């Protein structure tokens, strides 16, 4: 990894770009980091357990809580009959994109059942066990209605939504795709399916709600505190200032903790009712229905090209399941509007209403399922014309953003592919599928490109230096396991010329200045820029005090360059330790705020993305079709890397998500009953250590001056993008089996493998 020169004027040593260990690492491994369910409160905490619906669509005809109420230790049972009045849920499509995050999410407010396992009762008791036991004594009688659960069976009802997630246009159209496709000598016309999937963070969704008068403090596991604050204020119908959200540590979010879920709403309602702190956690099983998912999709990818591999047309049509009561349209085809050049192009998103809970943002919304399909289609095209898949992509590298017709800020996709090919030994790949065999194992190589849009969100930060030079940084940003505490300390230390250990970063409290939170891979850019700007502002205040205080060694100094370096201030040949200077000029300390605006001209005028290329070697058992990854490399071009160590963790985490998506992750929805069947970690398979070989990540050295003051780009989701497609392409190379229904489990490959050959083939 190489670093460009940092953009700072201090000229001192920068901590940015150093592979620092996590500053919160020790507290995590020693158990001192407090997670949502571990918070304590003054007063006796009561424990809630949520009872979920046993049908997916219909009404509660009768609910009998009499037996449960008699259980010793039960304090309160909330159902739609006695739940506090809350605002109605409202329309399936909110007036604005932002409203999705802030709308009221009432619980137990009607007798209607909209999805399987939707809360129908909350039992609050002195202990969790009592609450859970009593919940089993509640009997519910349902008036069940026939729901729609099967995407494929309801395609006739597909409709075009007003917009996709994040506010993108549903459709895009350039040139005349159909004509180009019809006239083309080479075409790919393939249907891919991607399954329902669940985030499954290690830490389940959990909340402790504590009321004090008319204000509530909510200890929870949240990625974006401002959303939680607004969502709870709307639901509880109290001013946002009366809601405090505390979430200092988050055991993974992956998009499932961007908005409030039943644990948070019900804990706050019950705590207000009981005038007692109430704690509620979702069980792992409950998370499958109540904490978001990625919806099932059917994707059609059509490519047309000339015989030299130049694309003449690209069409990507996506049909996704969506909840009947709240729309979510994943922007699955949007990435393709910027990826490859072609004169004729078309993307379309359609939805089919089903009776499930709402799909939500899941790591790389859009690219994760979209590139799984699209980057396989590119591989199909390469195979069809007998061209190396890297060469095919290079031939279609656009000079400018092909649909927005604006320049890219920085784009080094080609370099990622070429560097990766060199390091991975891509030249050893045999183009003919099934041609590399080791004993009873078929071996294949595959690759895919990665692209992920770069964002920035409005954020503020506060930094304070006390009279002894100790620095505290505060903002309502979260660290969801990504390394935010660490990189913000590095940024502040770099700006102020201090060692990282001198910076105390405090996150996860909505009393701190508001940020864009963790989501959309924008956390580092947004919070990092705000912290940087706050520190720059603080330096100006320190300099002003140093010039103005009579006791200061820099008193009266004017127009000289003043540097903050090595924990000291240097100017005019003089160097004074910052701690000593503060004691002299501002013994009570100094404060400064910093902010960054939401995406502005640099985002309108430049097409901004981070890029990568994934390379994979797989081994497929010729008899059983079991596929195991042997090695994987990702080469990443994502602006300045703030901390190569935590950044690498982000990328390999994404690559492992790619392994899961390609080979095993699938939430099975029973099309008769509408519930997710494999709703625990024994049956919903995510890769385990034995599935993950040594993964390698290379960062190309670059900085994007248009992205933000740091020159960085988002990396939290990039590792997922295309990673699964590279694996599927490697399976094709190994076996000749092109499996378009993800995940690529062994039962799908098996029919393509030859029957057991002679014994002499055994190794």
């Amino acid at each position, binding site marked *: 990894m190489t670093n460009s020169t940092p953009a700072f004027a201090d000229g001192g040593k920068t901590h940015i770009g150093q592979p620092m260990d996590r500053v919160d690492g020790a507290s995590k491994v020693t158990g001192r980091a407090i997670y949502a369910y571990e918070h304590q409160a003054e007063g006796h905490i009561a424990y809630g357990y949520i009872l979920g619906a046993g049908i997916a669509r219909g009404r509660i005809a009768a609910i009998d809580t009499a037996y449960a109420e008699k259980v010793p230790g039960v304090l309160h049972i909330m159902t739609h009959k006695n739940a506090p009045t809350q605002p109605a849920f409202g329309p399936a499509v909110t007036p604005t994109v932002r409203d999705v995050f802030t709308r009221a999410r009432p619980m137990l407010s009607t007798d209607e059942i909209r999805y399987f396992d939707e809360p129908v009762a909350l039992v609050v008791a002195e202990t969790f066990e009592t609450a859970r036991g009593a919940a*089993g004594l509640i009997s519910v009688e349902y008036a069940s209605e026939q729901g729609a659960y099967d995407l494929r069976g309801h395609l006739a009802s597909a409709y075009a939504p007003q917009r996709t997630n994040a506010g993108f246009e549903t459709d895009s159209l350039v040139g005349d795709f159909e004509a180009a496709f019809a006239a083309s000598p080479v075409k790919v016309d393939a249907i891919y399916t991607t399954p329902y999937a669940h985030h499954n963070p290690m830490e389940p969704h959990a909340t402790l709600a504590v009321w004090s008068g008319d204000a509530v403090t909510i200890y929870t596991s949240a990625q974006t505190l401002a959303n939680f604050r607004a969502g709870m204020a709307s639901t509880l119908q109290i001013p946002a200032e009366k809601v405090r959200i505390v979430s200092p540590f988050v055991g993974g979010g992956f998009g499932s903790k961007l908005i409030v879920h039943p644990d948070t709403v019900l804990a706050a309602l019950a705590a207000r009712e009981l005038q007692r702190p109430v704690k509620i956690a979702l069980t792992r099983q409950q998370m499958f229905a109540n904490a978001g998912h990625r919806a099932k999709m059917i994707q059609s990818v059509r490519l047309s090209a000339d015989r030299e591999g130049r694309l003449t047309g690209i069409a990507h049509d996506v049909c996704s399941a969506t909840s009947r009561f709240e729309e979510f349209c994943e922007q699955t085809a949007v990435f393709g509007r910027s990826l490859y050049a072609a004169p004729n192009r078309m993307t379309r998103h359609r939805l089919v209403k089903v009776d499930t809970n709402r799909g939500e943002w899941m790591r790389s919304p859009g690219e994760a399922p979209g590139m799984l399909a699209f980057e396989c289609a590119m591989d199909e095209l390469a195979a069809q014309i007998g061209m190396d898949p890297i060469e095919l992509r290079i031939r279609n590298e656009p000079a400018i953003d092909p649909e927005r017709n604006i320049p890219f800020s920085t784009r080094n996709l080609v370099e990622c592919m070429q560097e990766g090919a060199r390091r991975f030994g891509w030249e050893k790949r045999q183009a003919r599928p099934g041609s590399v065999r080791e004993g009873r194992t078929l071996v294949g190589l595959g690759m895919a490109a990665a692209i992920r849009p770069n964002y920035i969100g409005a954020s503020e930060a506060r930094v304070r230096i006390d009279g002894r030079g100790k620095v505290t940084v505060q903002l309502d940003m979260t660290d969801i396991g990504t390394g935010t505490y660490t990189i913000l300390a590095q940024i502040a230390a770099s700006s102020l010329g201090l060692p990282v250990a001198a910076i105390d970063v405090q996150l996860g409290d909505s009393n701190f200045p508001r940020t864009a939170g963790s989501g959309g891979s924008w956390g580092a850019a947004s919070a990092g820029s705000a912290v940087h700007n706050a520190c720059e502002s603080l330096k100006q205040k320190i300099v002003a005090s140093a010039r103005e205080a009579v006791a200061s060694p820099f008193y009266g100094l004017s127009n000289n360059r003043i540097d903050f370096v090595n924990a000291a201030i240097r100017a005019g040949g003089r160097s004074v330790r910052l701690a000593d200077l503060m004691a002299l000029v501002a013994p009570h300390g100094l404060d400064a705020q910093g902010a960054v605006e939401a995406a502005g001209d640099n985002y309108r005028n430049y097409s901004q993305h981070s890029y990568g290329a994934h390379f994979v070697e797989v081994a497929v058992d010729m008899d*059983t079709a079991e596929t195991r990854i042997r090695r994987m490399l990702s080469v990443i071009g994502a602006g300045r890397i703030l901390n190569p160590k935590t950044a690498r963790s982000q990328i390999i985490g994404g690559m492992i998500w790619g392994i899961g998506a390609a080979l095993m992750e699938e939430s099975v929805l029973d099309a008769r009953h509408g519930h997710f069947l494999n709703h625990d970690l024994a049956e919903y398979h995510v890769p385990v250590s034995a599935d993950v070989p040594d993964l390698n990540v290379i960062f190309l050295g670059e900085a994007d001056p248009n992205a933000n003051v740091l020159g960085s780009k988002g990396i939290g989701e990039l590792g997922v993008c295309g990673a699964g497609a590279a694996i599927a392409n490697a399976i094709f190379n190994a076996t000749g089996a092109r499996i378009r229904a993800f995940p690529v489990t062994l*039962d799908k490959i098996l029919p393509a493998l030859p029957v057991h050959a002679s014994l002499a083939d055994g190794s």
Partner: protein
Amino acid sequence: MKPFTYQRALDAGDALAGVAAGRNAKFISGGTNLLDLMKLEIEQPAHLVDINRLPLDRIEDTGQGGLRIGAQVRNSTLAADPRIRSGYQVLAQALLSGASGQIRNKASTGGNLLQRTRCYYFYDRNMPCNKREPGSGCAALGGFNRMHAILGSSNACIAVHPSDMAVAMSVLDATVETTDIDGTARQIHIGDLHRLPGSTPHIETDLRYGEMITAVVLPPAKQGRQLYRKVRDRASYAFALVSVAAVVDMAGDTIAAARFALGGVAAKPWRSPEAEAFLQGKKPSAQVFEKAADAALANALGRGGNDFKIPLAKRTIQQVLAAVSQRG
């Protein structure tokens, strides 16, 4: 979870008295499956008798060349025992392919045999299930049944037994020793312990109420090569789609004796006497193994989602037989 009373038994008499007191008591050993089932209220015992402290935690020589494995021997202990590793590799391999290290540290020999199916519909009390609620129907038929049985199932139930250990014990012809509620001891061949579902899938074993497994006896180590091959969706911590435990003894270039058992295909470990008899005296070849595999799966019945298990089982049998019948 329903409230229950709990008793820690210190000897067999204590334990049997504990279950004799009522009709809804259960023994608990490692608890790796029972506690989950109790949390979900699929199991609702009124009384738990903890048998972890019973002096059944030793692996002893039988005096006739075999091994007696106490019912309280942990899966990880058993897998690591030098006598198991040298004479009964197929069992050590099967144990190590099951669950995770943490679960194996807790799970006992007796409990492993009595673990219940992982059928999704059995675990969801909102769904009909003849095993959980006799007469309510089977939601797996016509549902998502990718993991389900291809052999010995019925229209009442198509669940599979999830144990790896039991499959290896089956090919080793182990004997299960029990003590009945009145103190009577009996021996049950491993093949007779688990029942096929028929019309009574809720009755899973030959054990009577209150009858406790005290040991599993392995006969003297069999001649020949041993192998346990588990085919699954990920490399660890996944139940078998199909597994094969095999012991093949070669006499020169012919098969003196071949035994194999299948896992993940039925409500019990599955042996095929026809296939084993066919192999005896044959020279190893792809054609011979193919015929043996065909014989073992002759009565297989797919239910839609699990149709692939039939060719998968055949292919895995052939791969395993080829591996264990090599010379040298």
